[in-house]
C-alpha cells in the first residue's frame, strides 16, 4: 500500500475509524489533564484546596480561581479554535476533580486516615460551565477572557459555600472559639503542617469589614481575566501544527 492510498475503503469504515480516533484522543486528553492540571493545581493551590481549615474568605477565594483558570483557558484555545468544541474548561475540571477525588479518597483517607469531610477538593464546575457557554455563544476569546474570567472568579465562592458552610459553624472548645473547620485542623494532626503556615484570613482587605468574600472574589476575578489571556496564548502555541523539514 503506498502512502497516497487511503487507509479506509468505504465511507462507513471512515466514520468508524474517525469515531475510534475520537475516543482515543478524548481518553488521552483526559488522562493528560488529570495528570498535568492536577499537579499544577497541587503545586499552586496546594493546602488551600486540601483542607477545610484553609478554605477561608480571603486567600482561598483569591488564590484558587487564579491558579485554576490556567488549563481551562489553554484547552479552550485549542478545542474551540481548531474544532469548535465548547467543552475545554469543563473537561479540564472533570479531569482535575477526578484526579483529586482519587487522591483524596485513596491517599488522604485510605492511606493516612484524614476524614474525607476534612480534605475534599474545591468545586470548580460552575465556573467551567459558564466559561464554556460564554465562549460558545460569543465566539470571542477576548469576551470570554473578560466575561468568562470574571464569572470564573465570582462564582467560585458561592459555588462552594453550600459545601463548606456547615464547617463554619462556631463552637466553644476548652474555652476558645473555633469554627468546626478550625477544630478539624486542630484535631486531625498534620505533623507536616504546623499552624503558622496556615495562610488564612490575612491581607489588607480589613477595611471592608465583614464583607471580605465578595471583595476577594472581585479581586480574584480581575486577576483571572489576566491569567486567562496568558494561558490562552500558551494553549494557542501548543496547538499549532508545524511542519518540519525532513532530513
Amino acid at each position, binding site marked *: 500500500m503506498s502512502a497516497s492510498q487511503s487507509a479506509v475503503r468505504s465511507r462507513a469504515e471512515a466514520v468508524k475509524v474517525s469515531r475510534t480516533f475520537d475516543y482515543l484522543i478524548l481518553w488521552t486528553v483526559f488522562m493528560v489533564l488529570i495528570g498535568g492540571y492536577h499537579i499544577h493545581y497541587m503545586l499552586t493551590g496546594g493546602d488551600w484546596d486540601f483542607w477545610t481549615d484553609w478554605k477561608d474568605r480571603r486567600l482561598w477565594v483569591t488564590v484558587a480561581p487564579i491558579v485554576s483558570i490556567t488549563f481551562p483557558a489553554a484547552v479552550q484555545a485549542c478545542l474551540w479554535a481548531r474544532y*469548535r468544541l465548547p467543552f475545554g474548561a469543563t473537561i479540564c475540571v472533570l479531569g482535575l476533580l477526578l484526579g483529586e477525588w482519587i487522591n483524596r479518597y485513596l491517599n488522604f483517607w485510605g492511606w493516612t486516615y484524614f476524614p474525607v469531610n476534612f480534605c475534599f477538593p474545591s468545586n470548580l464546575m460552575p465556573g467551567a460551565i459558564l466559561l464554556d457557554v460564554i465562549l460558545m455563544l460569543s465566539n470571542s476569546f477576548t469576551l470570554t477572557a473578560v466575561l468568562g474570567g470574571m464569572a470564573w472568579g465570582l462564582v467560585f465562592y458561592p459555588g462552594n459555600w453550600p459545601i463548606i458552610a456547615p464547617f463554619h459553624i462556631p463552637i466553644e472548645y476548652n474555652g476558645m472559639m473555633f469554627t468546626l473547620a478550625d477544630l478539624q485542623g486542630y484535631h486531625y494532626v498534620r505533623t507536616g503542617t504546623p499552624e503558622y503556615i496556615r495562610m488564612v*484570613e490575612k491581607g489588607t482587605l480589613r477595611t471592608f469589614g465583614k464583607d471580605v468574600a465578595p471583595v476577594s472574589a472581585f479581586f480574584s476575578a480581575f486577576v483571572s481575566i489576566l491569567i486567562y489571556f496568558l494561558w490562552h496564548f500558551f494553549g494557542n502555541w501548543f496547538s499549532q501544527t508545524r511542519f518540519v523539514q525532513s532530513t
Partner: protein
Amino acid sequence: MKTIKDKVAKLSFVALLMTLSAAMLYTPTASAHGEKSQAAFMRMRTIHWFDLNWSKPKVAVNETMEISGKFHVFAGWPETVDKPEVTFLNIGIPGPVFIRAGSWIGDQLVPRSVSLELGETYSFRVLLKARRPGEWHVHTMMNVEGGGPIIGPGKFVTITGTMGSFRNELTTLTGENLDLETWGLSNVYFWHGLWYLIGVAWVVYWIRRPVFVPRALAVNAGKLDGLVTDTDKKVAIIFFVGTIGIVLLGMGQANSKYPVTTPLQAGLMRGMVPLEMPEAFVDVKVEEASYRVPGRAMQMTLTVTNNGDVAVRLGEFNTASVRFLDPEVYQDDSGYPADLLADAGLSVSDNSPLQPGETRTIEVTASDAAWEVYRLSDLIYDPDSRFAGLLFFFDENGGRQMVMVDAPLIPVFI
C-alpha cells in the same frame, strides 16, 4: 531524526507517567521518625524536653491519654535557626491515629502558634484521644517557623479496638450535636456528585456527535455552519441559566440552614507564661569537654560550686533527650523510652555529696551507644562544634537543681 523523535516520545511518556503518579500518590506527611536525621545541634541547642510522662502505654479507641512534661528553651539558641518567635506545639504521630483533644502550655490552650522566650522553661501537656488501632510512636514536637520541626523523644503507645467505633461528638454554639468525624460528609458528596454529573452531561452532549476529525476538517475548510446549531445554543443557555440557578439556590439554602457562621480563626498568641524555676544555687563551669569517637563517650571537666545550704550530687546529664544517669544518685521510674535512657551511663570521678560552700573539679563521663544510635556524635562535624545539655543535681531532701551547660567540644579520634 527518527531516534531523536523516539527518544522525545519516550521521555515525554515517562514524564507524563511520573507527573500522573506524583499527583495521584501525594500523601500529606504522616511519618514522624525524623528525629535521628535531624542535625545534632538542632536537638542539643534548641528545645530541651524533660520530666516527660506518657500517661498510658495502651489505650482503647475513644479513650484518652496524655503526654506531659516540661521544655526548656535554650538561651544559646543557634544562630542558623530562626528564633522561636512563632512556634507551634505539635505532636509527632503518624497521621491522625490520635486526635489532638487538647494541648496546653502552662494553663493556656494552644491551638494556635505561640511566641516563646529564650532561656525560659515551660510546662506543657497534650491530650490525645485514640482513633486508629495499632502501635504508634508518639513524639513530643515543637515546630519553629524558619527552623522546622524540633522532635523530642518518642515512645510506643498501643491503641486497641476498631476505628469504626471512633466518635468525635461535639455540640456547637448554635446548639447542634454532631460527630465531626462524618459531619457534612454526605452534603460534600451530594454537591460534588451533582456538579460532576452536570459537567459530564455537558461533555457527553458534545461527544455524541463525531468529535475531532470531521470538525477539524470543517474548521480548516472554513465551513463553520452546522458545527454549532441553534439547538446547541438553546442547550447551552439552559446549562448557563441552570448553573447560575443552582448556585444561587444552593447558596440561599445553605444560608437559611446555617444562619450563624464565623470566619476561620487564626492568629499568633503571645504572653505564654513560663514556669517559675527557682534560681539554681549550684554553679557549674565547663573547663574542658571532649568526645571520644572510638569509645562513644563524652568527657567533661566541670568545676562545680555549691552556693546553697544543702549538699548535692550530680545525678543526670540530659542532652537531645538522651538521659545519662548515675544510678547511685538517681534512678528513673517514669517509664522513659529505653533507647534514650542510659540508666548507668553517667560516671563521675568524685560524686560524694558536695557540701554547701564547697567547690570541686570533677571528671564526668557520659557514655552510651545512644551517641551513635541517635547520631549525636555527628555534632563534631558541625560548623560550630559545641554541645549543650541539662545537668541535674539532687540533694538529700529530694530537691533538684537544673543547670544548663553550653561549651565547645573537642573530638578525640584515637
